[in-house]
């Protein structure tokens, strides 16, 4: 996994970015992901409604549909593979037989539902992530109920993954150039040594950063600037409520 796709569409003005701050957008993404991800089985009407809303969202955010499709395709194996086992594991009458494979009817339906729910949830998060700068997203996380230490770890993790990756790559390259035609066992050990070295470097850098922080008056908490103001609170609340309403509708639809 790489971090190259971050910030690509972050600076495009759009309906969504004009009306919402990164923090508000994050809440919208969470609401959409929960509405889609937790839709009860059988609520097809609500799922269709969500899909329409999401298509509108893609337009409002001006994310190229192709780029979005690529991002969803990258995430596809994460949920497609486990879903594909369901037609064989969920008990029920066989709906389809291909050679020796017997697909259970309820299993097929459940797998399809899961794939739709996951696709919608992943797309909703992707849209918001791709129009928000990583740094703004980190600042927006201040609005979530996360412990301070988790937030500072996310901020420092984002800043130093680049620095440490560069160092890690140099170490592994140096190791590779020395290994030649070494046996598998030795290659494995060299790789683990590089990993150990990565953590040694991280530790040393952590100590140096600690000094640099102290010398600028750091005591025990990681101060942050006030996040960007603006946006429209009314719009954001309305959109979040809309997702909640669709989810509730789905719950009733499933019960009916």
């Amino acid at each position, binding site marked *: *996994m790489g971090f190259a796709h971050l910030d690509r569409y972050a600076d495009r003005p759009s309906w969504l970015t004009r009306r919402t701050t990164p923090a508000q957008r994050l809440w919208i993404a969470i609401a959409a*992901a*929960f509405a889609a*991800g*937790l839709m*009860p*089985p059988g609520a097809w009407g609500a799922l269709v409604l969500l899909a329409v809303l999401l298509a509108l969202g893609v337009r409002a955010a001006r994310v190229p549909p192709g780029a979005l499709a690529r*991002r*969803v395709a*990258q*995430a596809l194996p*994460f*949920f497609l593979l*486990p879903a594909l*086992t369901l037609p064989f594991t*969920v008990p029920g009458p066989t709906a389809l037989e291909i050679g020796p494979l017997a697909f259970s009817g309820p299993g097929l339906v459940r797998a399809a539902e899961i*794939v*739709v*729910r996951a696709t919608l*949830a992943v797309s909703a998060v992707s849209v918001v*992530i791709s129009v928000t700068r*990583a740094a703004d*997203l980190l600042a927006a*996380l201040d609005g979530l*109920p*996360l*412990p*301070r*230490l*988790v937030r*500072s*770890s*996310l901020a*420092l*993790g*984002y800043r*130093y*993954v680049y620095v*440490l*990756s560069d160092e*890690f790559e140099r170490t592994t390259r140096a190791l590779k150039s020395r290994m030649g035609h070494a046996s598998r066992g030795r290659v494995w*050990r060299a*790789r*683990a040594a590089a*990993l*150990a070295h*990565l*953590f*040694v*470097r*991280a*530790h040393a*850098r*952590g*100590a140096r*950063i600690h000094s640099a*922080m*102290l010398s600028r008056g750091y*005591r025990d*908490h990681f101060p942050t600037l006030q996040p960007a103001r603006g946006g429209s609170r009314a719009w954001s609340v309305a959109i979040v409520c809309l997702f909640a309403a669709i989810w509730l509708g789905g719950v009733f639809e499933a019960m009916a």
Partner: protein
Amino acid sequence: MAHIPDGFLSAAVSATTLVAAGAVTAYAARRSQKNLDERAAPTLGLATAAVFAAQAVNFPVAAGTSGHLLGGVLVAVLFGPWAGYLVMTAVLIVQALIFADGGLTALGANVLNIAGIGALVGYGIYRALTALAGEGARRRGLAAAAAAYVATVLTGVAAGWELGLSGVAPIRLSVGAMAGVHAVMGLAEGAITGTAVWALTRKRPDLLYQPRAPATGGLNRAVVLAGLGSLAIVVGLLSLVASAAPDSLERAAIDLGFADAATAWEGAPFGNYSTWLPGPAGTAVALVLGIALLFAGAAATFRAIALARGAREERG
């Protein structure tokens, strides 16, 4: 595979695991802040960056698939269980938000499965093994490898159990399938973690997490605590399974030829919650009680190990 995506968990399971994970995370933050003081932020931040950098490298698993390091046991051995838990939590948040690896609705479950079982339970296994086997580089490496393997399999079991509870597939099937997949994945996790800990112990043993000198208390209390702890874990697990699928244990018992014994499980403490508390509420109560029991059991066992060490050092 270890990460549960969006769309798989039911609302009840998602909400309960989120609340439970939130509580553990708040506690872990307090413990880490206390242990590391104002060094906590830079230390954990750089550990998070290192895990990201390590995960960017894929290693081959089997049959042409590849996976990346989970890293829970490795960070716990280096930074301590609570700090390791927080680092893994931060990593899981980024994976869910930016890489769609693991869903937002499953974040609570994934934090419990990967950070909780990886860093907390995995570290407990590692500590227990090093207490038994000794602390040389090779022994520490082997202990870390075994802990990483077992923790990975348990991660799979927990994920399978949550999936079954959500009604995705019958619980026995989902637990079996997930445990099977993770039994293979765990081999690579164990090998990498073990070799890395071995290399670290040889080069920089000073970097490994040193638990504080335990309070004195005596061996007897340690034995009692260990007993109570394991009992809580066993009862927690059993009642969870029993409550999640009241008849699955019975069926398993019949399969195994213990039909008579099966009736005894009806009396398991929380065995019938889901039958007299309808639907999601019953599941939620069962989950909370089960998780509470598991963590209480783990905490008691940790404490017992610390006490036993203290007693040993006092004598020696």
